[in-house]
């Protein structure tokens, strides 16, 4: 079972992947949507953790593309921005919406929740 992390902040997403690996979660990461789509095509990810605001392809857009190809994939949204429309959209797509900075424990909880 693998997890895909997508965030435009490389420092953030790499550290996060490493931390997850300490907690026996196998996580791949990338900093843009296109690579994420390619990676998803090659590997079967159970959960994708997406940043809402990314250059070129945003979290919601990416989620739609991913969901179209991988209907079983679960999504968790991360955002530094608390806009109401994002929050509503995130909720509509599964209500897994976390605002940065995220406690690694709460992320873990969400992942477990999504997998359950």
């Amino acid at each position, binding site marked *: 079972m693998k997890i895909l992390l997508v965030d435009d902040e490389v420092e953030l997403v790499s*550290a996060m992947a490493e931390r997850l690996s*300490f907690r026996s979660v196998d996580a791949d990461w990338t900093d843009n949507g296109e690579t994420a789509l390619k990676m998803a095509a090659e590997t079967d990810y159970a959960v994708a953790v997406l940043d809402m605001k990314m250059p070129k392809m945003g979290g919601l857009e990416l989620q739609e593309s991913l969901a179209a190809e991988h209907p079983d994939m679960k999504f968790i949204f*991360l955002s*530094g*921005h*608390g806009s109401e429309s994002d929050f509503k959209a995130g909720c509509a797509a599964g209500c897994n919406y976390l605002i*940065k*900075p995220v*406690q690694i424990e709460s992320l873990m909880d969400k992942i477990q929740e999504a997998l359950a």
Partner: protein
Amino acid sequence: MSIFNKIRPQFWETGSNVGPGKSLFNYRRIWRIAIAVLAVVALVPLCVMAVIDYNVTRNSLESESLLRTARTTSNTRRTVAFFLQERQQALDFLAMHQGLEALRDCENLGRVLDSLKSSFGGFVDIGIINDQGLQIAYIGPYDLIGRNYRDQEWFSNTMGQGDYISGVFLGFRDEPHLVIARKIVDEKSGKSFILRATLDTEQFNSILWSLDLPKGGDAFIVDREGVLQTPSRLHGSLLTQVSLAVPGYSEKTSVEQIVDKDGTDLTVGYVYIRGTPFIVMVVKKTRELMSLLQTIRMELMWLMAVSIAIILLVIVWVATYMVNKIYIADQTRAQALHRMEHTNRMASIGRLAAGVAHEINNPLAIINEKAGLINDLFEFKEEYVHDERLLNNIKSIIDSVQRCGKITKRLLSFARHIDIDMDAIKFKELAEEVIDFLRKEAEYRSISITMDIPENLPEFISDRGKLQQIFLNLVNNAFQAMNDGGNLAISATPSDKDSLVFTVRDDGCGIPAEDKKRIFDPFFSTKKRTGGTGLGLSITYGLVQELGGSMSVESEVGVGTEFIITMPLKAPEKA
């Protein structure tokens, strides 16, 4: 002053320096200009018309009174002239019909006098004088036979002109009378005689006395020297000099307006009677003639005064009404502008806060992840797991990041709700959110905040952003009213099954009773000098109403103020 306070229009106290952009107009100036312009437009034509009307009336009255005087004078002349002419013709008739011989017979003359008296009246005596001036026949109350008139002026006049009418004189009889005489030429002898008759002035006077003259009017006859021939009511007695100037010769009726010796204005109609020494004069007091004008003038003045008063009242009322409307519209406009400005500012602040929070959140997240990673490395690799100092440092980094995160999240949640509409709200959460913003200030000023909100308070549907604003405004207000170390109490209770009652109570300075009814008015502020706009409570009030609630205030100076807000559980349908 107290009456003025009651009727004083709303705009009166507004200076032009209320604040930039708050008032476009100087209302009192508009008011004054409106009244002046309306008054000029309405009153000038009224006054001009009144003056014109008065002049027209005066002119027509004047000409009418002149005409009336002229008519009276001319009628009188005609009557007097006719009276004299009639008697002259009677003598003519006698002379032609009876002949001189018959008339010289005193007995016959007596019969003639009797019939003259009964048919014409006014004759006193009758006599015949020969060309030597000797009275040769006479019938009358006096013994005049043998009197010689040769040297008298009337005798020669009559001999010369053929007939003669004397003025009124007393003569030796000591009774006013006048004489008419006629020359008769005897056909047989060819000698001239004079037929002379005396008339009493009784009938003469009665003609003039019977004239219907207004008060102060007078009609009389004077001779050409101005001696009164008939008694006058006001201008001298019989056979004295009349007190008026004798007018110039005119056989046509003339009317003049003169000023009497004692200063009264007189209207004098006069005419000379041809062939006699008489001048008929009709004198009226101009003031009496024009007395109708006085009445008209008084009526006109009253009408003017009442009209002007009514017009001015209406003008003042209309001007006040209109300017008040302008004032209210202007205030509403300013209020709306200010609210828009306020909303915009709130939205901008919200967006700014959201942006800032976002920008900060990302680096925070990185710090968080990196510190977490270090922590994980230590914990999972177990290399430094016993180094308490390092782990504590990392823990404090993570704690600080968490604190920052909490703050930015709160900011976000506040900013996020600016453009949301209806939401289910737990008042406890909302109150805590609002208080969180001001908690630091409260701590600095050692204001204690107590919240009495029951756990089982039902949720209610409302606009979170607006509610936040309402409570933020009220709490801010309370903070401004309180001294350091005050108490603020927020409580909530369900009032009935459809609404909740919230109260925000402080123990600050309180609101004076005379200000209490005005505190929700826009632009009412006791802190204008220190930059208050007077809009806080008015906006709050507006927001409460928008949400279908109601708001009241209880306050006592020096004790504190309590704002009570009643909110429906369900918000009203948006129109």
